[in-house]
Protein backbone atom coordinates (compact mmCIF):
# COMPACT_ATOMS: atom_id res chain seq x y z
CA UNK A 1 0.00 0.00 0.00
CA UNK A 2 0.96 3.60 -0.40
CA UNK A 3 1.72 5.67 2.72
CA UNK A 4 3.10 9.07 3.49
CA UNK A 5 6.05 8.48 5.82
CA UNK A 6 7.63 11.59 7.29
CA UNK A 7 6.21 13.64 4.47
CA UNK A 8 7.42 11.37 1.67
CA UNK A 9 5.18 9.03 -0.36
CA UNK A 10 6.26 5.43 0.04
CA UNK A 11 5.09 2.04 -1.24
CA UNK A 12 5.25 -0.51 1.58
CA UNK A 13 4.31 -4.14 2.27
CA UNK A 14 3.80 -3.67 6.03
CA UNK A 15 0.26 -3.80 7.32
CA UNK A 16 0.90 -2.61 10.87
CA UNK A 17 2.87 0.32 12.27
CA UNK A 18 5.25 -2.07 14.00
CA UNK A 19 5.96 -3.92 10.76
CA UNK A 20 6.49 -0.63 8.94
CA UNK A 21 9.28 0.39 11.33
CA UNK A 22 10.99 -2.97 10.81
CA UNK A 23 10.52 -2.75 7.03
CA UNK A 24 12.18 0.65 6.76
CA UNK A 25 14.90 -0.21 9.28
CA UNK A 26 14.22 2.14 12.17
CA UNK A 27 15.67 1.62 15.66
CA UNK A 28 12.40 0.63 17.38
CA UNK A 29 13.44 1.62 20.90
CA UNK A 30 14.43 5.19 20.23
CA UNK A 31 11.71 6.63 18.04
CA UNK A 32 8.17 7.77 18.69
CA UNK A 33 5.33 7.45 16.22
CA UNK A 34 2.12 9.15 15.19
CA UNK A 35 -0.52 7.97 12.76
CA UNK A 36 -2.64 10.61 11.05
CA UNK A 37 -1.63 13.14 13.69
CA UNK A 38 -2.40 10.92 16.70
CA UNK A 39 0.32 9.56 18.98
CA UNK A 40 0.70 5.79 18.89
CA UNK A 41 2.53 4.47 22.00
CA UNK A 42 5.26 1.89 21.49
CA UNK A 43 3.14 -0.89 22.96
CA UNK A 44 0.28 -0.28 20.54
CA UNK A 45 2.26 -0.26 17.31
CA UNK A 46 1.81 -3.97 16.61
CA UNK A 47 -1.96 -3.65 17.02
CA UNK A 48 -2.18 -0.53 14.85
CA UNK A 49 -3.19 -1.38 11.28
CA UNK A 50 -2.15 0.85 8.38
CA UNK A 51 -4.54 1.90 5.66
CA UNK A 52 -3.81 3.17 2.19
CA UNK A 53 -2.96 6.88 2.22
CA UNK A 54 -2.24 7.01 5.96
CA UNK A 55 0.21 9.63 7.21
CA UNK A 56 2.92 8.24 9.49
CA UNK A 57 5.35 10.36 11.48
CA UNK A 58 8.47 8.78 12.98
CA UNK A 59 10.50 11.10 15.19
CA UNK A 60 13.78 10.83 17.05
CA UNK A 61 15.73 12.92 19.62
CA UNK A 62 17.32 16.02 18.22
CA UNK A 63 19.07 19.18 19.40
CA UNK A 64 16.67 21.83 20.65
CA UNK A 65 16.45 25.16 22.41
Amino acid at each position, binding site marked *: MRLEVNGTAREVAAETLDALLVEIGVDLASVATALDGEFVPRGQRAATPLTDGARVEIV*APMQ*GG
Partner: protein
Amino acid sequence: MFYGIDLSSRLMLGTAQYPSPRVLAEAIAASGAEVITVSLRREGAGGGAFREILKGLNCRPLPNTAGCHSVKEAVTTAQMAREVFGTNWIKLEVIGHADTLQPDPFALVEAARVLCADGFEVFPYTTEDLIVGERLLEAGCKVLMPWGAPIGSGQGLRNRDGLRTMRAHFAGVPLVVDAGIGAPSQAAEAMEMGFDAVLLNTAVAKALDPVAMARAFGQAVAAGQAAHTAGLMPKRDMAEASTPIFGMAELV
Protein backbone atom coordinates in the same frame (compact mmCIF):
# COMPACT_ATOMS: atom_id res chain seq x y z
CA MET B 1 12.28 23.42 43.22
CA PHE B 2 11.16 22.51 39.74
CA TYR B 3 8.51 19.80 40.10
CA GLY B 4 10.25 18.49 43.19
CA ILE B 5 13.73 18.68 41.68
CA ASP B 6 16.30 20.95 43.28
CA LEU B 7 18.94 22.23 40.90
CA SER B 8 22.27 23.53 42.08
CA SER B 9 22.90 25.34 38.78
CA ARG B 10 20.08 27.67 37.77
CA LEU B 11 21.21 27.85 34.16
CA MET B 12 19.24 25.73 31.72
CA LEU B 13 20.96 25.36 28.38
CA GLY B 14 19.71 24.61 24.87
CA THR B 15 21.55 22.08 22.73
CA ALA B 16 20.92 23.47 19.22
CA GLN B 17 23.13 25.37 16.78
CA TYR B 18 26.56 24.42 18.19
CA PRO B 19 29.43 24.14 15.71
CA SER B 20 30.02 20.47 16.65
CA PRO B 21 28.88 17.79 19.11
CA ARG B 22 32.22 18.08 20.90
CA VAL B 23 31.74 21.82 21.44
CA LEU B 24 28.19 21.14 22.65
CA ALA B 25 29.39 18.64 25.24
CA GLU B 26 32.23 20.90 26.41
CA ALA B 27 29.92 23.92 26.61
CA ILE B 28 27.40 22.07 28.77
CA ALA B 29 30.18 20.90 31.08
CA ALA B 30 31.67 24.41 31.30
CA SER B 31 28.28 25.99 32.03
CA GLY B 32 27.50 23.67 34.91
CA ALA B 33 23.92 23.31 33.60
CA GLU B 34 22.04 20.28 34.87
CA VAL B 35 19.01 20.73 32.62
CA ILE B 36 19.31 20.81 28.83
CA THR B 37 16.56 21.34 26.30
CA VAL B 38 16.10 18.87 23.47
CA SER B 39 13.59 18.32 20.68
CA LEU B 40 12.04 15.72 18.42
CA ARG B 41 12.44 15.78 14.68
CA ARG B 42 11.81 13.33 11.90
CA GLU B 43 13.94 10.19 12.11
CA GLY B 44 16.72 10.20 9.56
CA ALA B 45 17.82 13.78 10.16
CA GLY B 46 20.75 12.73 12.37
CA GLY B 47 18.77 11.40 15.32
CA GLY B 48 20.96 8.37 15.95
CA ALA B 49 24.06 10.49 16.42
CA PHE B 50 22.34 12.87 18.83
CA ARG B 51 21.00 9.97 20.86
CA GLU B 52 24.56 8.84 21.53
CA ILE B 53 25.69 12.35 22.45
CA LEU B 54 22.76 12.71 24.84
CA LYS B 55 23.74 9.57 26.73
CA GLY B 56 27.18 10.99 27.49
CA LEU B 57 25.95 14.34 28.75
CA ASN B 58 24.48 13.12 32.02
CA CYS B 59 21.96 15.96 32.17
CA ARG B 60 18.24 16.04 32.81
CA PRO B 61 16.52 16.50 29.43
CA LEU B 62 13.74 19.05 29.05
CA PRO B 63 12.10 18.22 25.71
CA ASN B 64 10.39 21.07 23.90
CA THR B 65 7.46 21.43 21.54
CA ALA B 66 9.32 24.00 19.43
CA GLY B 67 7.65 24.91 16.17
CA CYS B 68 4.17 23.83 17.22
CA HIS B 69 1.40 26.28 16.38
CA SER B 70 -1.66 24.39 17.60
CA VAL B 71 -2.86 22.59 20.71
CA LYS B 72 -3.00 19.27 18.86
CA GLU B 73 0.51 19.51 17.45
CA ALA B 74 1.92 20.47 20.84
CA VAL B 75 0.06 17.74 22.74
CA THR B 76 1.03 15.01 20.26
CA THR B 77 4.65 16.19 20.28
CA ALA B 78 4.68 16.14 24.09
CA GLN B 79 3.29 12.60 24.14
CA MET B 80 5.97 11.44 21.72
CA ALA B 81 8.69 13.25 23.70
CA ARG B 82 7.62 11.59 26.95
CA GLU B 83 8.05 8.17 25.37
CA VAL B 84 11.39 8.89 23.71
CA PHE B 85 13.08 10.83 26.53
CA GLY B 86 11.45 9.00 29.42
CA THR B 87 10.48 12.16 31.32
CA ASN B 88 7.24 13.88 32.27
CA TRP B 89 8.93 17.26 31.85
CA ILE B 90 7.90 19.24 28.80
CA LYS B 91 8.84 22.74 27.72
CA LEU B 92 5.54 23.74 26.22
CA GLU B 93 5.79 26.13 23.30
CA VAL B 94 2.74 27.00 21.26
CA ILE B 95 3.79 29.70 18.87
CA GLY B 96 1.32 32.37 17.81
CA HIS B 97 3.34 34.54 15.48
CA ALA B 98 5.99 33.62 12.93
CA ASP B 99 8.16 36.76 13.22
CA THR B 100 8.21 37.26 16.97
CA LEU B 101 7.72 33.59 17.93
CA GLN B 102 5.44 35.04 20.60
CA PRO B 103 3.44 32.37 22.43
CA ASP B 104 -0.25 31.99 21.59
CA PRO B 105 -1.60 32.35 25.16
CA PHE B 106 -5.02 30.84 24.40
CA ALA B 107 -3.66 27.68 22.80
CA LEU B 108 -0.89 27.54 25.43
CA VAL B 109 -3.35 27.43 28.32
CA GLU B 110 -5.49 24.83 26.58
CA ALA B 111 -2.50 22.61 25.76
CA ALA B 112 -1.21 23.00 29.33
CA ARG B 113 -4.58 21.88 30.68
CA VAL B 114 -4.58 18.74 28.50
CA LEU B 115 -0.99 17.86 29.35
CA CYS B 116 -1.19 18.51 33.11
CA ALA B 117 -4.29 16.31 33.28
CA ASP B 118 -2.29 13.62 31.50
CA GLY B 119 0.48 13.64 34.11
CA PHE B 120 2.96 15.92 32.38
CA GLU B 121 5.07 18.41 34.34
CA VAL B 122 4.72 21.43 32.15
CA PHE B 123 7.21 24.31 31.75
CA PRO B 124 5.12 26.75 29.71
CA TYR B 125 6.92 29.30 27.54
CA THR B 126 4.75 32.35 28.12
CA THR B 127 4.83 36.14 28.26
CA GLU B 128 4.91 38.35 31.36
CA ASP B 129 1.09 38.60 31.26
CA LEU B 130 -0.21 37.99 34.79
CA ILE B 131 -3.61 36.67 33.80
CA VAL B 132 -2.13 34.13 31.39
CA GLY B 133 0.21 33.12 34.20
CA GLU B 134 -2.71 32.60 36.56
CA ARG B 135 -4.58 30.54 33.97
CA LEU B 136 -1.50 28.38 33.47
CA LEU B 137 -1.27 27.74 37.22
CA GLU B 138 -4.99 26.90 37.29
CA ALA B 139 -4.34 24.47 34.44
CA GLY B 140 -1.87 22.66 36.69
CA CYS B 141 1.51 24.20 35.82
CA LYS B 142 3.87 24.58 38.78
CA VAL B 143 6.52 26.56 36.88
CA LEU B 144 6.16 29.56 34.54
CA MET B 145 8.67 30.59 31.90
CA PRO B 146 8.21 34.20 30.76
CA TRP B 147 10.20 35.38 27.78
CA GLY B 148 12.97 37.93 28.18
CA ALA B 149 12.73 38.90 24.51
CA PRO B 150 11.87 37.08 21.26
CA ILE B 151 13.67 33.75 20.84
CA GLY B 152 17.17 34.12 19.41
CA SER B 153 17.05 37.93 19.44
CA GLY B 154 19.62 38.52 22.19
CA GLN B 155 17.79 41.64 23.34
CA GLY B 156 17.83 40.72 27.02
CA LEU B 157 15.03 41.69 29.39
CA ARG B 158 12.85 43.79 27.11
CA ASN B 159 10.17 44.51 29.71
CA ARG B 160 11.93 44.77 33.06
CA ASP B 161 9.00 46.36 34.83
CA GLY B 162 6.62 43.70 33.61
CA LEU B 163 8.99 40.94 34.69
CA ARG B 164 9.47 42.59 38.08
CA THR B 165 5.71 42.76 38.55
CA MET B 166 5.39 39.12 37.53
CA ARG B 167 8.07 38.10 40.04
CA ALA B 168 6.24 39.95 42.81
CA HIS B 169 2.82 38.63 41.79
CA PHE B 170 3.87 34.99 41.66
CA ALA B 171 5.93 34.87 44.84
CA GLY B 172 6.71 31.24 45.58
CA VAL B 173 6.14 30.01 42.01
CA PRO B 174 9.36 28.96 40.26
CA LEU B 175 9.85 31.42 37.39
CA VAL B 176 12.37 30.88 34.59
CA VAL B 177 13.30 33.62 32.14
CA ASP B 178 13.35 31.79 28.85
CA ALA B 179 14.46 33.22 25.52
CA GLY B 180 15.98 36.45 24.30
CA ILE B 181 19.00 36.49 26.64
CA GLY B 182 22.09 37.65 24.72
CA ALA B 183 24.71 38.41 27.38
CA PRO B 184 25.74 37.08 30.79
CA SER B 185 24.95 40.48 32.35
CA GLN B 186 21.31 40.03 31.26
CA ALA B 187 21.16 36.57 32.80
CA ALA B 188 22.67 37.94 36.02
CA GLU B 189 20.08 40.73 36.03
CA ALA B 190 17.21 38.23 35.79
CA MET B 191 18.64 36.31 38.72
CA GLU B 192 19.20 39.49 40.75
CA MET B 193 15.51 40.29 40.21
CA GLY B 194 14.69 37.02 41.91
CA PHE B 195 13.95 34.73 39.00
CA ASP B 196 14.67 31.11 39.80
CA ALA B 197 16.51 30.19 36.63
CA VAL B 198 17.43 31.33 33.14
CA LEU B 199 17.07 29.27 29.98
CA LEU B 200 19.07 30.18 26.89
CA ASN B 201 20.65 28.66 23.82
CA THR B 202 21.71 30.96 20.99
CA ALA B 203 23.86 33.31 23.11
CA VAL B 204 26.14 30.39 23.93
CA ALA B 205 25.90 28.36 20.73
CA LYS B 206 26.58 31.34 18.45
CA ALA B 207 29.36 32.91 20.52
CA LEU B 208 32.81 33.04 18.97
CA ASP B 209 33.92 30.61 21.68
CA PRO B 210 30.82 28.75 22.92
CA VAL B 211 32.65 26.89 25.69
CA ALA B 212 34.08 30.08 27.21
CA MET B 213 30.69 31.80 26.85
CA ALA B 214 28.94 28.87 28.52
CA ARG B 215 31.32 29.23 31.46
CA ALA B 216 30.66 32.98 31.59
CA PHE B 217 26.90 32.39 31.69
CA GLY B 218 27.25 29.81 34.43
CA GLN B 219 29.24 32.29 36.53
CA ALA B 220 26.83 35.15 35.80
CA VAL B 221 23.79 33.11 36.81
CA ALA B 222 25.51 32.00 40.01
CA ALA B 223 26.56 35.59 40.79
CA GLY B 224 23.06 36.94 40.15
CA GLN B 225 21.51 34.28 42.35
CA ALA B 226 24.00 34.94 45.14
CA ALA B 227 23.35 38.70 44.86
CA HIS B 228 19.60 38.22 45.12
CA THR B 229 20.03 36.03 48.19
CA ALA B 230 22.40 38.58 49.72
CA GLY B 231 19.83 41.37 49.23
CA LEU B 232 20.56 44.31 46.95
CA MET B 233 20.74 47.80 48.42
CA PRO B 234 17.85 50.14 47.64
CA LYS B 235 18.38 52.82 44.98
CA ARG B 236 18.57 56.53 45.93
CA ASP B 237 18.03 59.63 43.89
CA MET B 238 20.97 61.56 45.36
CA ALA B 239 24.49 60.70 46.45
CA GLU B 240 25.31 59.61 49.97
CA ALA B 241 28.97 59.73 50.95
CA SER B 242 30.32 56.35 51.89
CA THR B 243 33.44 57.70 53.65
CA PRO B 244 32.55 59.18 57.07
CA ILE B 245 32.58 62.99 57.38
CA PHE B 246 33.37 62.85 61.12
CA GLY B 247 37.06 63.25 61.85
CA MET B 248 37.90 64.97 58.60
CA ALA B 249 40.88 67.38 58.87
CA GLU B 250 40.16 71.10 58.52
CA LEU B 251 42.44 72.24 55.73
CA VAL B 252 40.92 75.49 54.47
